[in-house]
């Protein structure tokens, strides 16, 4: 039976997909197709005229004149043979054609003898089925009749194309409705702009933000609604593509802080832009409040601390008269703890300002050897009180570009930590040295060390390792966060090499800055 089996086209998968996409299988008959088959039946004078669609296992009759069935198996289908090529399949007498001589539709009802089918192409170029005419007696399709069949098939193809087009239009409309819903439901002002930055379309969020109706927004230049955040009242200069901070003045005169991002519309040659405007008023207010709190805290805490420290310092030094030994101990304790409080306040303010990128840095030529020596000198007494040796090694200058005071703060924090975690009798080694790619400052202790897992964590804010070490000397866990912040502000890195029981070595690497090379 294989001789009679219709071939499977090379584009079968795409062909079936295109057929299914038309959504014509198993649908009621339609006048738009029936008028074509009726015309074919009448003009070509045949008892049967069909528009067939060749599905995976069957051929479905979308339009059918002269037959009482709606589909037949694909294996017995003449049309499945016809769609193997573009031209008309013309079978004068099925009983004389080896492909069809044993076909059940030939041997049984409807006893086909004559068949002529013209394949119907989808818009995408796949042959989906045919317009075919059938007779139960042998006959010949004349050239005129072939031309008629081709014309009628072109008509049927046109109807298929109309279906595809209306589907595309429906899809486009649906997509547009969805996009409009998205644009209307996002809490962001959206505007389409023409090249002169005039608004051509705006969403309701922008309307709410500006207090202008979407109709009133159309035609308005966007930059007239927005002014520069830094120099108020000057219209915003839009950079494309780009993000800008701006102030938006609403119709009622109220002002909002906004962030504007502008991008060219893809696939638009006319230079149209899309602008996204987000209201950041609340966010800016929080930022301003935070800045204010930091600034006020700085001043309001430092002023009483200055008085307390001053008074206690003078008392401890005997300026107010000599103190009895017990009183002296109490005053000394108060001095020490005041200093600790001052360090904490300073560290917290530094951490906040580093996080906000607002810690002022005065970069200039600096000497890392001098930095190491200064930090060491400042901690000699702390080291002596802890019974820890302090060895600063710096042979010759180690020039870097940096803020000397801030680098001393880095070295001081590292050395202070090293002293804190050292046992009595141990020595902390501090070394400044030139490196190929810059300069290094290393601080090495022989303390308890730490797990590898902790070597990154310790640089985070408020992190303290529970080492069971001298808790009295522990701080708020800010020192190393400040170290990292300052070092990174110098484009440098800080790392620690450590293992439990093996001590810790902190290494600060600062890059060569241009002109800083010796």
């Amino acid at each position, binding site marked *: 039976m294989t001789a009679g089996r219709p071939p499977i086209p090379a584009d079968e998968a795409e062909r079936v997909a295109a057929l299914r996409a038309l959504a014509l299988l198993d649908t009621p008959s339609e006048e738009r197709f029936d008028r074509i088959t009726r015309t074919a039946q009448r003009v070509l004078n045949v008892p049967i005229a069909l528009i067939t669609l060749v599905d995976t296992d069957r051929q479905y009759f979308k339009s059918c004149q002269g037959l009482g069935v709606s589909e037949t198996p694909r294996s017995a289908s003449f049309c499945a043979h016809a769609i193997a090529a573009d031209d008309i399949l013309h079978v004068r007498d099925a009983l004389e054609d080896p492909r069809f001589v044993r076909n059940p539709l030939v041997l049984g009802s409807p006893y086909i003898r004559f068949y002529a089918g013209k394949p119907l192409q989808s818009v995408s170029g796949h042959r989906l089925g045919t317009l075919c005419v059938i007779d139960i007696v042998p006959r010949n399709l004349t050239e005129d009749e072939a031309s008629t069949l081709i014309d009628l098939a072109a008509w049927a193809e046109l109807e298929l194309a109309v279906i595809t087009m209306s589907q595309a239009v429906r899809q486009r409309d649906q997509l547009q409705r969805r996009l409009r819903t998205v644009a209307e439901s996002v809490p962001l002002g959206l505007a389409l702009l023409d090249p002169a930055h005039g608004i051509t379309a705006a969403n309701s969020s922008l309307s709410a933000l500006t207090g202008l109706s979407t109709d009133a927004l159309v035609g308005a230049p966007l930059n007239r609604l927005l002014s520069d955040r830094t120099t108020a009242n000057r219209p915003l200069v839009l950079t494309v593509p780009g993000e800008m901070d701006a102030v938006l003045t609403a119709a009622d005169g109220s002002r909002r802080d906004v962030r504007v991002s502008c991008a060219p519309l893809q696939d638009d040659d006319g230079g149209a832009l899309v602008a996204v405007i987000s209201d950041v008023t609340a966010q800016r207010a929080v930022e301003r409040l935070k800045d204010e709190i930091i600034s006020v805290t700085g001043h309001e805490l*430092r002023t009483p601390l*200055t008085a307390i420290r*001053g008074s206690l*310092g003078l008392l401890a*030094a005997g300026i107010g008269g000599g103190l009895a030994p017990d009183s002296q101990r109490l005053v000394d304790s108060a001095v020490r703890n005041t200093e600790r409080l001052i360090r904490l306040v300073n560290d917290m303010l530094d951490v906040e300002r580093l996080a906000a990128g607002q810690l*002022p840095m005065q970069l200039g030529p600096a000497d890392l050897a001098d930095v190491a020596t200064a930090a060491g000198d400042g901690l000699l007494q702390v080291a002596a009180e802890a019974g820890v040796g302090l060895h600063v090694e710096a042979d010759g200058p180690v020039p870097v570009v940096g803020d000397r005071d801030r680098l001393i703060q880095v070295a001081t924090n590292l050395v202070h930590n090293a002293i804190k975690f050292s046992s009595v009798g141990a020595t902390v080694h501090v070394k400044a040295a030139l490196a190929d790619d810059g300069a290094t400052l290393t601080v090495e202790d022989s303390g308890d060390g730490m797990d590898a897992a902790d070597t990154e964590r310790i640089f985070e804010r408020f992190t303290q390792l529970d080492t069971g070490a001298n808790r009295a000397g522990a701080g708020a866990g800010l020192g190393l966060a400040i170290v990292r912040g300052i070092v990174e502000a110098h484009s440098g890195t800080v790392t620690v090499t450590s293992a439990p029981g093996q001590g810790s070595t902190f290494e600060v690497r600062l890059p060569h800055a241009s002109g800083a090379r010796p």
Partner: protein
Amino acid sequence: MTRRVLVIDDEPDIREITALTLERLAGWEVLIASNGSDGARLAVDGRPDAVLLDVMMPDVDGEATARLIRANCDLRELPIVLLSAATQLPAWAEELGVLGLVAKPFDPIGLPDQVRAELGW
């Protein structure tokens, strides 16, 4: 000859401690003013050798006080050192010929040396 310094600060406790420290530890004569306007007047009338100036003060702040002082041609060269809760010199300090800054809170025992260092005394 005894040095004479003018301390301008709106906080009474800070003024007193600063004055006490400089008088007792450095042996200087200390003039005090509790606001910028009085301070600028005393900078003329009191003939100080140097001014220790607070930065954050109500009404006439440190910058305005420094401008008032510099507006007097006799005081163009009067050494000014800031006594401030800030850790770095403000932008206007250079323009007004401010010599340096002592950060609050300061260690009273070290204060005379810190001031001497900033003044070059």
